Structures are given as structure tokens and as C-alpha cells.
């Protein structure tokens, strides 16, 4: 008697489950063209990184850049399109390995844009390397990744040592900072960057503190800064915390320089901090200004504004698309193509060294002026 309603519910769930399998078995990708051209490879590009979860916004910026590049390419090659297959790892290094295994077993995937985070890069690097699948990460900046000997792993964004060294140079020479307070957010990226900056500054470091991503109240840190008499603050971390930190610093009466790295170089930094607190902030990035048309086209394709890592993923995708055009679609061919690729992308000049790091690299200092992040006129740091 009591069993029947439960059986009914289970049956309904099973039916729903089966109906959902239709959803489950299709890819979250744009439609594939039928193999109309005789020799169309119907290639795919994979993206692996956070799409949901607390880091989802960054991942969506990256996918937006990839889609933008694919959109332009597919318009020119309507009879043989390249499609995107996304793999949401939520930035979790536990979820990444099964995704990596799945990616390497799909013969139509020619390259990976990603992984998004340094942690998942460390977790899957060996797998991709053993399978020979080339990858270009638009955002994983931890220095140790390219020291593992994974010759298929590349990143199109400058790693932390180049950026940190330039930041320290800027503080010493351009800003004439005598007492710098260095703060990081404990993340692999933030702490890595802050450590390089601290090393570069040497004795000018008047104090340091570590906050946590997701933190919103920085009163203790603010007190440390103001009581140390620092004339500059360097923050290694991302824009949500950077914006709140500079806002609370200014509200406590701190009048010195606030500087941060590319993790904060996003328009949301200004809206989080409030225009007056953000003014005067210097945000560095290993990428020159994107053309103003970039954001327009991005918005057309994706429906929202571009953000951190959009230009990098756009450039990375174009490298892969150029390889496909040149017929270099096997793993080794693709890898060789990437290794020897040189061009000027929207995120900066592109050429990879033997470790997979991008060679350039000029670090640019972007300033916040009149309540806007001036993305058009950064000054290069030498």
C-alpha cells in the first residue's frame, strides 16, 4: 500500500531521468556542421576550467573569448566549422582529472584552451602530457607549472615572476615608494605574485599581511597599513578583494598609492571600490590594451562585457585556428605549430619559450582615472 506511491515516484523519476539523458548526451557546444565538405575534419577545441561555482565568472570570461574567436572563424568557414566543447571543473583539482581523461580520449579535439586554474593544471598536466594533447592556458600563472617538463603545456599570459619583477621596479623607480606594505590573498596566484614583489623590493617592505579570497571585511589589515606609515600598498590577488581593500583603506584615511596585478585589472575593480577610492590605483597586466572594438564584438557575440582573461583566451583560440587552417591538426603538428608561433595578439606579442611560457613580456601599468579604468593608455614598465 505505502509502497505504491513510492514506486510511482520512482517510475516518474526514472522516466524523467531517461528524458534528461537526451539533454545529457548532447554537448554544451555550438552546432556542428554536417561533414558536407569531403575533407572536413569537424575539429573541436576543448575548454576546461571553472564555469560554475565561485570562480565561475572568470571562466565565463574565458569561454566568451573563445566563442568570439570561433564565431569569426566559423563565419569565414561556414562549410567546415570548428566547435567548442566545454568542461566545467569548477576550478576544483579533484574534478579535473576525469575531465582530462575524457578530453584526451576524444580524437576530434585538437587542442585545449585551459586549464583555467593553476591547481587543476598541476592535477592534469601529466595526463595531457602523456597523451600529447597541446594546451594553451589563458590564466594559470603559477610559476611551477612550466618547470615540470610538460612540453605540451603553454600559457599565453605572463607568469608571476615577470609581472612581479616589473611591479617592484615600478614601485621603486616610478612611484619612488619608500615604505611598501605587501598584501596577498593566500591563493597560488596572489601569494606567488606578492612574494616576487617582496623579493624585488627588499628593504622597502615595511610590513605584510595575508587575507583570504572571499573575505569582505579588512579592518585588521587596514589598521596594520595605516599604523605602519606605508606610502604604498601592493596587493597580490583578485578584483573582488582588491576593490574592497582599497575602499576600506581610503575610508580609513590612507592616502598613498594602491597597486595590484592583472587579477585586479578588471572594470569590476572600480565598481567594487567606488570611483573615488579607485582613482589613482595602478593595476599592471602582462598585456597591452585591446582594441576598443574588442569589447564591442565580444558583447555582440556573448551578450555581456568582456573581462579578465577574455583577450588571452581569444588569442589562444586564434593560434589553434591558425594551426587548423595550416593543416596541422595532429597532436605533434599542433604542438610544433604552437611552439613556433609568433604574432601580435590583442593581449600582446605572442611567442613561446621552450618551457611553454610566453616570451615577451612587457608589463603595462593601467591607471584608474576619473572613475574609469583607462584601458587605452597604459604605460609600459621597463
Amino acid at each position, binding site marked *: *500500500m*505505502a509502497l505504491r506511491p*513510492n514506486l510511482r*515516484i520512482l517510475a516518474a523519476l526514472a522516466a524523467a531521468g*531517461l528524458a*534528461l*539523458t537526451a*539533454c*545529457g*548526451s*548532447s*554537448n*554544451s557546444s555550438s552546432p556542428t556542421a554536417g561533414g558536407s565538405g569531403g575533407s572536413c575534419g569537424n575539429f573541436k577545441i576543448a575548454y576546461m576550467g571553472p*564555469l*560554475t*561555482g565561485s570562480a565561475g565568472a572568470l571562466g565565463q570570461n574565458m569561454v566568451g573569448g573563445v566563442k568570439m574567436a570561433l564565431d569569426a572563424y566559423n563565419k569565414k568557414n561556414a562549410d567546415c566549422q570548428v566547435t567548442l566543447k*566545454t*568542461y*566545467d571543473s569548477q*576550478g*576544483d*583539482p*579533484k*574534478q*579535473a*582529472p*576525469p*575531465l*582530462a*581523461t*575524457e578530453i*584526451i*580520449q576524444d580524437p576530434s579535439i585538437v587542442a585545449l584552451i585551459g586549464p583555467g*586554474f*593553476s*591547481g587543476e593544471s*598541476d*592535477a*592534469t598536466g*601529466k*595526463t595531457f602530457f*602523456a*597523451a600529447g594533447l597541446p594546451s594553451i592556458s589563458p590564466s594559470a600563472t*603559477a610559476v*611551477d607549472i612550466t618547470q*615540470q617538463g610538460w612540453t605540451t603545456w603553454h600559457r599565453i599570459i605572463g607568469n608571476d615572476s615577470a609581472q612581479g619583477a616589473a611591479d617592484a621596479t615600478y614601485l621603486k623607480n616610478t612611484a619612488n615608494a619608500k615604505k611598501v606594505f605587501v598584501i596577498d590573498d*593566500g*591563493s*597560488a596566484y596572489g*601569494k606567488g605574485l606578492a612574494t616576487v614583489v617582496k623579493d624585488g623590493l627588499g628593504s622597502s617592505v615595511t610590513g605584510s599581511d*595575508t587575507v*583570504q579570497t572571499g573575505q569582505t571585511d579588512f579592518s585588521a589589515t587596514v589598521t596594520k597599513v595605516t599604523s605602519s606609515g606605508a606610502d604604498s600598498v601592493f596587493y597580490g590577488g583578485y578584483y573582488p578583494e582588491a576593490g574592497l581593500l582599497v575602499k576600506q583603506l581610503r575610508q580609513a584615511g590612507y592616502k598613498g598609492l594602491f597597486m595590484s596585478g592583472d587579477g585586479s585589472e578588471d572594470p569590476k575593480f572600480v565598481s567594487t571600490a567606488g570611483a573615488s577610492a579607485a582613482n589613482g590605483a595602478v593595476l599592471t597586466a602582462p598585456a597591452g590594451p585591446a582594441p576598443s572594438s574588442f569589447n564591442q564584438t565580444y558583447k555582440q557575440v556573448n551578450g555581456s562585457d568582456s573581462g579578465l582573461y577574455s583577450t588571452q583566451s581569444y588569442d589562444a583560440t586564434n593560434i589553434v585556428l591558425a594551426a587548423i587552417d595550416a593543416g596541422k591538426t595532429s597532436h605533434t603538428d599542433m604542438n610544433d605549430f604552437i611552439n613556433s608561433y609568433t604574432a601580435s595578439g590583442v593581449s600582446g606579442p605572442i611567442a613561446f619559450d621552450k618551457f611553454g611560457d610566453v616570451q615577451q613580456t612587457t608589463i603595462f601599468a593601467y591607471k584608474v582615472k576619473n572613475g574609469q579604468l583607462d584601458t587605452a593608455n597604459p604605460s609600459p614598465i621597463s
Partner: protein
Amino acid sequence: MMVGGIVLAYALPIIRPPLITTTGSDFGGVMLTCASFSLVAVGLNIVVGYAGLLDLGYVGFYAVGAYPTGVLTSEHWHWPFLLALPCAIAVTMVTGVILGAPTLRVRGDYLAIVTLGFGEIIRIVTLNTGWLGAAQGIADIPPPPSLGPNPIGTDQDGLFQIPHLAWSGLVPSIDNLHKTPFLVFDVLDAIPYYWLLLTVLLIVLFADFLVKESRVGRAWEATREDEDAAELMGVPTFRYKLLAFALGAAIGGLAGSMLAAGQAGYINPLSFLILLSMLFLAAVIIGGAGNRWGAVFGGFLVAYLPERFRGLSDWRLLIFGVTLMVVVYFRPQGLLPPRRTRRAIQAREEIEQLEGEAVDV
């Protein structure tokens, strides 16, 4: 029948049946995650289901199993995995006792928040302590020892090779391009790790059966149903609660240790968020708290469903939340409730029938 089911479980990632195989993620890897969740759920079932203790921070034990393994085998020393594994379990048990000793005396709901805090403390400590790898995590954790020659990725590794099955529609064929070597643990294939974990899970289930049928299990049952009455009858409830906590911790540590030595050989603090504690608890409750097979099934579901329906990945957590509420309303005893709960529900329904209205006890 049980033997058949167990053989099927081992063979599943090789057979790759059409509706069940996950298309967005490697099926072998997903089965490995499911086995890991099931093992954790069995451990949490001892704490929550048998002893009736509310633990919201079980991910802490998972981490305390993984990190010593990483430290001993890769970060600071280079012990072989099979030596580090018992050490990790021992550390986790000790941690369980240290955590349980002061907090098991307080009210049940306080235990919930304290265990939640404990889980977070562990994560924050691993995130901010350089010696434990900090945010970079610990990499290059060696896998368990392999059997047979080891030229990885070729046709000669392992003692023998098992080809997978490929399906077109409902017709299977042998897929010689994808083979799993027996028994080689490397980065390309998750299936040997899955087999190892499944074996460990079966051993733990058997041990769980032995403990539950013994005096210890009966003491837990008495404590859970009415602690004061149990005390009056001479059951040293505190000691048995502590034992439940320690055993649950040990199993969580075992699962964590196997995670560390898994396919990626890499752990970092992002793998141990509070979210995971909630998933573990959901696995036990949905599966049926107090029934070890319920815990296994619940762990499997909670790990499998999000992977199976990756096409809906944006909506995953929302669907998870709604499913929790729905399942818990329509079937609060879980999908595989233990016998005592089934008897209680049956009894209540019989009384309802006889008395003609709901009896609210």
C-alpha cells in the same frame, strides 16, 4: 546475486553501457569518484547513521587523510604509498579522537557547528601553511605499486590488457583502441584506481558488517535511540560515541589517502571545501542513514548524477538543492532505509490503518 552485482561493478567502466556511461567526463574517472564518495559515505554513516551524531565537517577527515599521504610520499619525504597509507589513517583516527573527546559531551546540534568549524580550520591551515604546500598543493604523489612491466601507454604494459566495449546504439563491439592494462597505475587511465578503491570499499563494508553486528553496534543503536536510557542500562555511551567518531574518521582518512595517490597524484586546499561535507551528508541521508548499502548507493548517486548530466552543468547545484528538498520530503528515510526504519514505518502504517487516522507520536 551479490557476487554477480560485485562482478558487474568491477566490469562497469570496461563495459561502458550506453545509457549509464557519462559522455562529458571519463566514465572510469567518474566511477572512481563515485567509489570514493561511497567509501566516505560508509564512514560518515557510522557517525551519523549508527551513532546518531551530526557531523557537518567530515571533509576535514578527508583532508587529514590526504595531506599526510602527500607530505610523506612527496613533499618532504619519499615513503612508498603502502607505508604512508596506514600512517595517514592513524593520524586521522587520532585527530578524530582529539576532536571528539571534548565535543562529544556537548549537545548534538553544537557538535554540528563544531565539526563544521573543524572542517574549515583544516582547510585554512592547509591553505596557509607553507610546509603543507599552501595554495600550490602537493604534486607528484606516487600511485600505488603496479603489477607487470610498465612501459606506459604501449601495448606491453601490465600483465594483460583488457579492451573496452564500444557501442553503436545497442550493439556492442570490442574497442581495441582503448585498453586498460592490468594492473598499471598511471596518469592515463583511471580504471585500475577504481578497481583498487572498489576492493578497499568491499573490505571496509565487510569490516563494517562485523562491527555493526557486534556489541559495539548494539551500543551505538542504544545510544542513538535514547542516550539516557542507554547510560542507565550501563552502556558507556561517551566511549562508544568516541569510537564511532574515530572509526568514521579512519575511513574518511583512508578515502582521502587514496584520493591523494589517485590518477592525478595532486591535492590542494580547493579540493576540501565545506560544500563537500554537505554532499557527503546528503549522500548518507538520501541513500538511507543507518544502512551501509544505502550509504554506498547514496555516495554513488551524489557523485554520479552531476557527472551524468553535465550538459546541464550550469544548473547542477540548483538541481542538487531542489532534489535534496524533494527527496527528503517524499522519502525522508532515504532510498535504502535500514531494516529497523522500514519496520517502524510499517508499524506506523498498520496502526494508522487500525485506528483510522494518523498517530502522531
